[in-house]
C-alpha cells in the first residue's frame, strides 16, 4: 500500500510546506498521510482549495514511508526538499525530517 502526503510552496515566501490537520506547516512530522486513493483525492482537493485561496502554489503528492508515526519521503529529491540543502547544514530545517532520513553523501 502506497502512502502519500501533500506538499507545496507557500505563496508569500516560497517555503516548502506540508498539509497537516492544522493547515500548512514547514515540518512534515505531522503531515496528513493518505492511505487510499480516495484520501489522496481528498488531499489534492484541499491543495486546490489552498491554491484558490492564494496560500500555496504547485501542490503535489509525495510518496512516503511512515516509521514511528513520522512520514519520510521515499525519493531522495523529496527528502532533500523537506530537509534543506545537504551542503548547508546551517540552513537545514531542524524541525523537518528525522536526522536518519536525511540525504548524505
Amino acid at each position, binding site marked *: 500500500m502506497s502512502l502519500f502526503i501533500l506538499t507545496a*510552496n507557500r505563496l508569500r515566501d*516560497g517555503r516548502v510546506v506540508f498539509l497537516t490537520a492544522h493547515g500548512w506547516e514547514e515540518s512534515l512530522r505531522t503531515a496528513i498521510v493518505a492511505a487510499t486513493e480516495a484520501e489522496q483525492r481528498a488531499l489534492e482537493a484541499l491543495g486546490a482549495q489552498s491554491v484558490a485561496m492564494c496560500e500555496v502554489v504547485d501542490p503535489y503528492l509525495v510518496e512516503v514511508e511512515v516509521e514511528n508515526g513520522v512520514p519520510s519521503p521515499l525519493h*531522495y*529529491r523529496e527528502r532533500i526538499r523537506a530537509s534543506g540543502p545537504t551542503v*548547508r547544514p546551517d540552513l537545514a530545517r531542524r524541525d523537518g525530517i528525522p536526522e536518519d532520513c536525511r540525504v548524505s*553523501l
Partner: protein
Amino acid sequence: MYRYDSYDEAFVRARVAQFRDQVRRRLAGELTEEEFRPHRLMNGLYLQLHAYMLRVAIPYGTLSSRQLRRLAEVADRWDRGYGHFTTRQNIQFNWPRLEDVPDILEALAEVGLHGIQTSGNCIRNITTDAYAGVAADEVADPRPFCELLRQWSSLHPEFSFLPRKFKIAVSASPHDRAAIRAHDIGLRLYRDDAGELAFEVLAGGGLGRTPMIAKTVREHLPARQLLPYVEAILRVYNRFGRRDHKFKSRIKILVHEIGLDAFRAAVEEEYARSLDPEDVELAALELERIEELFAPPPYEELPARDPLHERRLAEEPAFARFARTNLRPHRVPGYAIVDVSLKPVGGIPGDVTSDQMRRLADLADRFSFGELRTTHTQNLALPHVRLRDVHSLWELLEEAGLGTPNIGLVTDIVCCPGLDYCALATARSIPIARALARRFAELDAQERIGPLSIRMSGCINACGQHHIGHIGILGLEKRGEESYQITLGGRPDERTAIGRILGPGFSASEVVDAVEAVLRFYLEGRNGPQETFADFVERVGVETFREVVYAPVRAR
C-alpha cells in the same frame, strides 16, 4: 565604467513599480500563478526547490564596488547572507520572500542592477570575456558592443517572446574566454586586413539536452553593422524556430534541421531586406557615446616590471604560487589582472558571503579603481591592480579566505547548484565538486596536473556546462539513485569541443575515484608536463580511458 543614464534609470524604476503592483495583485488573489509566472520570470524570479530564487544580471560581468556592497546588503537584509555567481556571470539569491522582492529590486535599481531578462524566452544577459578591456591579447574592448546589444535587446517588443531563451556571448581575443561557441550567437571581434574592426558571427551553439558547437554564419561583418545582422538572425529564428516542442525550440535545432547554408541564406536575405543605412548610422553614434563611458581608469605610467614585486616572487613561494595561478597579463605596463577564486577547498563553487562581498568591494576600491569582474567560471577578478600592490592584495585576500591559488586547475570546478537548490535537477552536484576538491586539495599536485577544467551539471540542462569541460560530470537519476556520467575530450576554449561519454555512470561513492583514475592515467602517460590533459585526451582517445578507469573503480 559604464553607468546607467537617466533613461536607463527611469526604465528600471518603472519596471520595479510595475512588478510591485503585480506582486500585490498576486498576493491579493487578483492574478493566478499562471498569470503571474511570466511576470516574475521576466524579472528574474524563479520558484526553486526550497524557496524563490532571484537572479540578478551583471551585464557583461562588470561590477562596481558600490554594486557589490548593495548585493551584500540584499544578502543580509532579505536573504541568508550569501550569493551564488553563475556560469553566465550573474548572481543568484536563494531565499528571497515574494513579498520582499519589490523592495529588493528597488534597492538594486538604485545602483543600476536588476533581474530583467535573466529568465524567460528572451535575449538573456550578454556575456563576454571577464578580462574585457584589460586583457593583453584583445583587439578592442568588446563591452561597448555588449552594452549596445543590451540596450537594443532590453524589452525589445519583437524578441520578448522567442521560441526559447536566447544567449549571446562576445569575445575580442584570439583566446576565447567567453565560450562563445557554446552560445545561441557567438561574436568574435577581430581586426581585418584593412585594420578595421569586424565580427565573425557564429550561431546555433548551445549545451543542454542536445549539445552543439556554433557554426560560422558570417566570417566578416563590419563591426558597425552588428545590430542589423544580429536582428536578422533573431528574425529568422523567431519566424522559423520551433514552438511545438520545447526540446527542439533552440536556434541550434533550427540551424541543424535546415542546414547551415539554408540558415545563412535566410539570414542574409533578411539582412539585405531590412538593412537601413540610417539605423546603422544611429547605432554607430550610440556606440561612440557608449565607448566614451568605457574610458579606461586613470592608470599611472609605470615600468612593465616592478622590482619589489619580483623580489617577493623570488622570496615567498606561497605568493609566487598565487602569482602563477591567479595573475593575468594586463594591457597596461605595470598592472595585472588578479583572479579571485571562489573555489576554496570545502566551499561551494561560486558562493560568496556578504562579508566577503564587502571585503572585495573595499579591495576593489583600494586596488582596482572600484571595479570587479564576474567570470563565467564562477570566480571574480580585480581588473586593474598595480604589480607593486599585488602582494598586499594577496595578503588581504588570504585573510578573507579568498586567496585560493587554483585558477584553471583541477579544483577550480565549475558547478551548477544541482539538486541542493534547483527544482529541475536530477542529482546533486555540489557535494561531488566538494569531494573532488578535497581529493585534489594538495597544491603541488594541482600544479603538476596542470590546466584542467572540470565542469559539472546536476541535470541534462547543463548549467554547469559539463559538455565543454575537459572532464565533464553529469548527475542523473538511475533506478532511484544519483548517478554520475563522465565525459572526456570537451574543451571550453577557442577549439570548443563536446566531450564524449566515457561509459556507464558511476555512483556518488565511485565518481571521485573514477576522476582520480582518469588523472592518474594522464599523469603516467603524458609526453611531459607540456602535454595538457586536453591534448592528451585528443591524442590517445576517450576509449583508451575505459579499461583503466572502470576495472579498478568497480573493484574497490
